[in-house]
Every structure is written in structure tokens, then in C-alpha cells.
């Protein structure tokens, strides 16, 4: 795993002391190179350019022993070298990469942003947010205490946060997203499979469904709003134990228990085919025509 390099580099670093250091390094890179970036804390900003070269500029934080830029043109490794606990070393990196690069970015508490890259992007951090605005076909972003913002024409997106919002725009195809307390908003094209989960955050989906698609939404307390084309063809299965259900497509929910307020709504729109399933304990559900 690439993360181990941080530890190795920390052990190898032997020069004592620290001085503020501005950095500027370059490395040749193929137009579709795999580029791995590791920075324990601070920020990582990646921007695409139309050169077969990687450029790293920025500032290393206290405790950094240097910046390692190595590897081959096909596989470039960029890592902040540290001594001791790397998590307190805040460095700010601006990295320019070939537009078609594939990116893997790992951090502990650095904010991560990616702009314009058209290869696959995978980013993970713990204590900060992730912003990706790219032309990537596939994006995966994962954080714990931060938000995830993705804007791309992706055909596949995986996004997760614990204590933060997830907002995804422009995607289509396959999407999987989950959070605990943040809102989860998806505004995209036509999906083949969408799985959206939240515990308390609201879930909003605006998009279309491919033929035989599945759209699964589940929350415990979060409200759910689905905005679907008026002419959508889908089979709906909606239930809420104690929340309201409002359906712009016509059919009325029915109460399914004499003893509780549990409601269920099952109907087909158009010629059916796609499956839309929504389940919540106490969240309100709204099916809206777009």
C-alpha cells in the first residue's frame, strides 16, 4: 500500500532540524501516467495541464524532511518525507499533471482538490474535504470528517463520508454514496444503478433511469426527495414507518398496519422496468416530477 511509504520515508529521513522550504520539482510523465501523491496534512491541489510532465510547487511544513518525487514516466510517486509523527506536518502542494493522468491521492488531514484531470481519480483523507472537478470516467472519494464534492461526467462514482455532505453533479451510470449525518445530493444524467444511503442526512436525487436500472435509497431519519422525469418508466416500492409520503406521480400511499403509521406505496409508472426502492424510518419521502 502506498501509505507505507510515508513511514518508510520517515525512517529513512536522517537530517535533523527543519527550515521553511519552498519546493519546485519536475518529473517526466506519460500522458496517461499513474501518479500517486501522499501528503499527511495541509493541502493537495492537483491541476491538469497539456504537458507530459509533472510539476510540484508549494511549501513544506515543520517536520518535513523533503519532497520525494520519483518513479518512472509511467508511474510517478510524490510524497512528503517526514520524521516522527507525520500527521502534524502540514505541507501545501500544488501538482500539475498530464490531463490524461490517473491519480491516487492519500492523506490524513490534507484537503484534496482535483481539477481537469481526465483519468481515473481516487482520493482519500480522514479529517478534511475532497473536491473533484474533472473529466474522469471514474471517481472514488472517501473521507471521515469532511465533505465530498464531485463534478464530473463519470460513469462510475463511489463516495463516502461520515460527518460530512456528499454532492455529486454530472455523473451517470453507476453510483454508490453513503454518509451518516451529512446531506447527500446527486444531480446527474441517466443511471443504471444508484445506491444512496444516509442515517440522518437528507437524500436528494435528480436524474433519469436507464432501462432496467435500480435506484435504492435508504435512510433512518433523513428526508428523501427524488426528482425524476415525468415520463419515467419504473416500478416503485416506497415505505416509511412514520414519515410522510408525497407522490407527484399520482398513486397514493396506503397504511399497512392497524397499530402504527407505517405507510407503503407501490406503483408502476410508464411501462415499468427500472426498480425504485426507498425506505426510511422517520424521514419524509417526496417523489417529484421534473
Amino acid at each position, binding site marked *: 500500500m502506498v*501509505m507505507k511509504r*510515508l513511514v518508510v520515508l520517515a525512517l529513512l529521513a536522517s537530517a535533523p532540524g527543519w527550515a521553511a522550504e519552498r519546493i519546485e520539482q519536475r518529473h517526466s510523465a506519460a500522458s496517461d501516467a499513474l501518479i500517486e501523491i501522499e501528503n*499527511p496534512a495541509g493541502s493537495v491541489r492537483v491541476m491538469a495541464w497539456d504537458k507530459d510532465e509533472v510539476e510540484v510547487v508549494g511549501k513544506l511544513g515543520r517536520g518535513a524532511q523533503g519532497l520525494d518525487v520519483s518513479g518512472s514516466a509511467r508511474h510517478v510517486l510524490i510524497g512528503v518525507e517526514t520524521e516522527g*509523527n507525520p*500527521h502534524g506536518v502540514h505541507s501545501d502542494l500544488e501538482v500539475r499533471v498530464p490531463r490524461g493522468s490517473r491519480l491516487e491521492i*492519500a*492523506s*490524513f*488531514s490534507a484537503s484534496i482538490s482535483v481539477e481537469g484531470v481526465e483519468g481515473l481519480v481516487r482520493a*482519500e*483523507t*480522514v*479529517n478534511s474535504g475532497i473536491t473533484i472537478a474533472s473529466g474522469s470516467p471514474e471517481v472514488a472519494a*472517501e*473521507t*471521515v*470528517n469532511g465533505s465530498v464534492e464531485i463534478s464530473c461526467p463519470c460513469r462510475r462514482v*463511489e463516495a*463516502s463520508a*461520515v*460527518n460530512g455532505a456528499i454532492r455529486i453533479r454530472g455523473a451517470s451510470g*453507476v453510483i*454508490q454514496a*453513503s454518509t*451518516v*449525518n451529512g446531506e447527500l445530493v446527486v444531480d446527474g444524467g441517466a443511471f*443504471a*444503478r444508484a*445506491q444512496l*444511503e444516509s*442515517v*440522518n442526512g437528507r437524500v436528494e436525487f435528480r436524474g433519469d433511469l*436507464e432501462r*432496467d*436500472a*435500480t435506484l*435504492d*435509497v*435508504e435512510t*433512518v*431519519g433523513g428526508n428523501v426527495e427524488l426528482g425524476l422525469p415525468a415520463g419515467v418508466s419504473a416500478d416503485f*416500492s416506497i*415505505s416509511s*414507518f*412514520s414519515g410522510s409520503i408525497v407522490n407527484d406521480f399520482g398513486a397514493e400511499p396506503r397504511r399497512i*398496519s392497524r*397499530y*402504527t403509521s*407505517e405507510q407503503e406505496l407501490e406503483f408502476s409508472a410508464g411501462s415499468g422496468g427500472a*426498480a425504485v*426502492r*426507498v*425506505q426510511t*424510518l*422517520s424521514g419524509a419521502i417526496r417523489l417529484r416530477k421534473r
Partner: protein
Amino acid sequence: MICAEFEDRLDDYLDGSLAEPEFQELELHLAGCGACREQERSLRSLLLQAAALPREQTPRRDLWPEVAARLEPRDALSEARRALRNGGWLPAALGAAAAVLLAVATLLRPPEPAPAPEPQALEPGSTALRAGSSSEPTEVLAAEREYAQAATTLLAALHARRERLSPETLAAVENNLQSIDDALAQIRAALERDPGSGALNHLLASTHQRKLKVLQRIVRLSRI
């Protein structure tokens, strides 16, 4: 001969399978070593008692159906626990939780409706919503215990790494785990009012799974 060598050959001595020179050698050692004489007497007594036991004990009822019914999920757990004992405990903790996810999901999962075509499975054991019948309360309790056990394992792993997390992150994690626990309590309360609800049973299971996935994710990311 030293005592260790005597111990190595004691079984063969009692079996009578030693060659004469070795037998004589052990007899000689026994004559001069009280500790080994005591050991020899104890083992001989134990073997005599064992020989007096009935050759076969038939259970009063057939236990196999119950064992078989639980074999698959238990095996998954056993594998994870074995890994926990033999390997690094953090990967094992993640593995144990994953095994519980699969095992308990099997226990709690309502019957599948007619299979719908899925373009691409995102993850094994993922929580696609299903309408279905309810689980037995005892199954639910057993499943909840398994989930709790897995969560405890992961929390211990997280605790071991807590110095790597900032106070803000730890507070956020604790708040979010509390949110999930509150949600679980709400679902249980709803289940008390409507124990026959398959949807609620499903929601209970998937919320437990979500808690474990959150813990897995935090533990994994805290290794960065």
C-alpha cells in the same frame, strides 16, 4: 538420561512399544527419579480411566439440523477469529467485521424477491432494499449480538489508533456513532410496536451494517 528425554518416551514406555535396551534405560531412570515416577503413575492412572469410558456416547436428540443451520455463518466467524489469533490483529479486526457483515446479513436477510437484473454489483452484502417477511425475534437478538461483538472489535482497533486522530475527528466519529446508535434505538422501538415488519427488520440489519462499515472505514483510513 535426563527427565526431558524420559518424558519424550513415556507414552511408548507405557504402551510397551520400546525396545528392550530403551526400556531398561527408562526403568533405570525411574528408579532414581521421584518426579518422573510420579508423572508415570499419573499418566498410567489417566489411561486406565480413559479405557473404562464407554466407547460411544449417543446424544439424547439429533443436534445436527441445528448445527447445520448455523454452520455457514459460524464458519465465517471462526475463520475471522482464527485470523485474529494468528495474524496481525488490525486486518483481522476488519476481516472479522466483514465476516460478521456477511454472516449476520445471512441471518437477518428477508427472503429474496424475484431476482431483478442488476447491471453491476457494487459490493458483496450491499444493502439493496428488499421487501420481505420478518425474522424471528431470537434470530434478531442473536444477530444483534454478533453485530455488537464485531463493533466492539473494531472499536478496540480504533481505540488503539486514537492518538493518530485529531480531537475534532474523534469527536466527530463519536457523535456519528452515537447518531447510528440512536437510529438503532429508534428502529428497535418501532419494531416493538410492529414486530412483524420485514421492512423494519431489514432497516435494523442494514443500519448495523452501516455502523460496521463506518468503523471499518475509520480504522482503515486511520492507518494512512
